[in-house]
């Protein structure tokens, strides 16, 4: 059910992001999707990779500060109103979204969005009850 996401602390300096991608390249890790959140001083790079453990080891060796977070990959109809419908269900049930971003690939008319929820268990329950598909991690990494 859960998708492992790595979030890495980066200072707002030229070349910082590339250092990470270089490291992942050398470790032969493939990024499936990513997003960068920024403030004026620092940014948080969030990535989902195909081999999470390998990436973690590489980051740890190089002394990066990073976290591993559980997020959900929610399937959304790839048409106008697709995301809206899902958000309506989430709001109706009082769930709180910390952040979300889109997954790069879509398949068979369905897009995938990555959600970070405050309360994971509750979110999984609500989504499944409302027939919204949550994509399993293992499936996602290989998409």
């Amino acid at each position, binding site marked *: 059910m859960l998708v492992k996401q790595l979030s890495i*602390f980066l*200072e707002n300096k030229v070349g910082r992001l590339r250092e990470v991608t270089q490291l992942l390249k050398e470790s032969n890790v493939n990024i499936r999707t990513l997003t960068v959140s920024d*403030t004026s001083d*620092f940014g948080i790079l969030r990535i989902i990779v195909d081999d999470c453990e390998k990436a973690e080891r590489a980051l740890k060796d190089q002394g990066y*500060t990073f976290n591993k977070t559980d997020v959900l990959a929610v399937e959304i109809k790839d048409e106008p109103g697709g995301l809206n419908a899902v958000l309506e269900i989430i709001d109706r049930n009082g769930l709180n979204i910390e952040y979300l971003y889109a997954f790069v690939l879509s398949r068979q008319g369905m897009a995938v969005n990555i959600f970070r929820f405050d309360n994971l268990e509750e979110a999984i329950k609500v989504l499944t009850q409302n027939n919204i598909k949550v994509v399993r991690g293992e499936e996602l990494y290989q998409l």
Partner: protein
Amino acid sequence: MVTSFFVNSMIYIETIIKRWFYIYKKKGLSISMIYNMDFETMPREALEAIQLRRLQETLSRVYATVPFYQEKFKESGIVPKDIRSLEDLKHVPFTTKQDLRDNYPFGMFAVPMENVVRIHASSGTTGRPTVVGYTARDIETWSRLMARSLCAAGAGPGDIIHNAYGYGLFTGGLGVHYGAERLGASVIPISGGNTKRQVIIMQDFGPTLITCTPSYALHLVEVATEMGVNFKELKFKAGIFGAEPWSENMRQEIEEKLNLKAMDIYGLSEVIGPGVSIECVEAQNGLHIFEDHFIPEIINPETGEVLPLGETGELVFTSITKEAFPVIRYRTRDITSLNPDPCICGRTHVRMNRVTGRSDDMLIIRGVNVFPSQIESVLMEMDNIEPHYQLVVDRVNNLDMLTVLVEVGQQVFSDEIKVLQTLEKSITKNIKETIGVSTKVKLVEPKTIARSEGKAQRVIDNRKI
């Protein structure tokens, strides 16, 4: 000479006492860890009588042998005979760092070079280093004062001391070294640097005491952790940290991370090196100054007026037993206060409180006096903040801007921007509430703040004034 007979018999008696102490300790009778019971627990009247006699002898000697002091005294219209009580010391002119620099290298030595067996120099970060010298008896005095210091921290024969202070012109390394040998402890002269090897040696040799700067201690822990070594499995019982100011909160941090009792040691090469004062393990509250060798005063740095006991001001020392390089009313530029309260350890020597900073360490940010140690205190008080920080001062649009760089360690990192921003804000808020100055906080990646092997460079002042 009567004086040298007195000194020699004191040395003899001290040796007897030391042996007796050693025998009793070996037999397992618990006795307070005081190296020189006779002098360190001497009643005040006797101590002050000895101070006065030694002071008068020193003043006569420097007047006769050091042209600099003779001129200085003449300018103030005094002669050594005028000093008839310890109170009269306030009439004697001060000596400053600049005076030492002006007499570089050997201008203030009180003995011919034939009698000087050791030369040390201070780091001299601003301007010329200051050079000091020692006769054989000075080295013996210094060794005994360091033995007292190590003993006050709980060391004795059988203890293994991991000495990571730098060896060389800096007085730290050799100071501890000679003290340890004098005490009869086993010293590992590892000096600074090559940290990974130091960690391996700590595991293999099992030292029970460590001596180094507080910033290096934290660096050692970092490297040890990376190597998978936990200080709780090592055999340290105590550490003696000095050569730079450090806060009470930093002490808690060090005691927790290194799993030992952390004592502060104070000294400066101009006065003798380390071994001017030491914290006792019994109280860990203030450093006992070896008053039978150094007379301390606290003065108002602006007016030079001597302040009463308990008030904060600049620390001034007069050495009363040094031969090659005596100093008369030397202004240390260190800010502290004296605490005359009786100490539970039994020593009667006055304590000086933690040095909060030097009068020249102090930053003036938009008119407010700020010591780096104050900021350190605030940071160390907050949970999970790494003890690696740096202050950067800039002048932007004619206003001073202080930025505090704080490393984001694993403990404090969150996946959520808002958590990190809240952290930045709470640091700013805490600093503002404690010190009254608004600072900007910048979170930086771990290991980006340079680690030091000696004194940490806490402040980068970019203002060109």
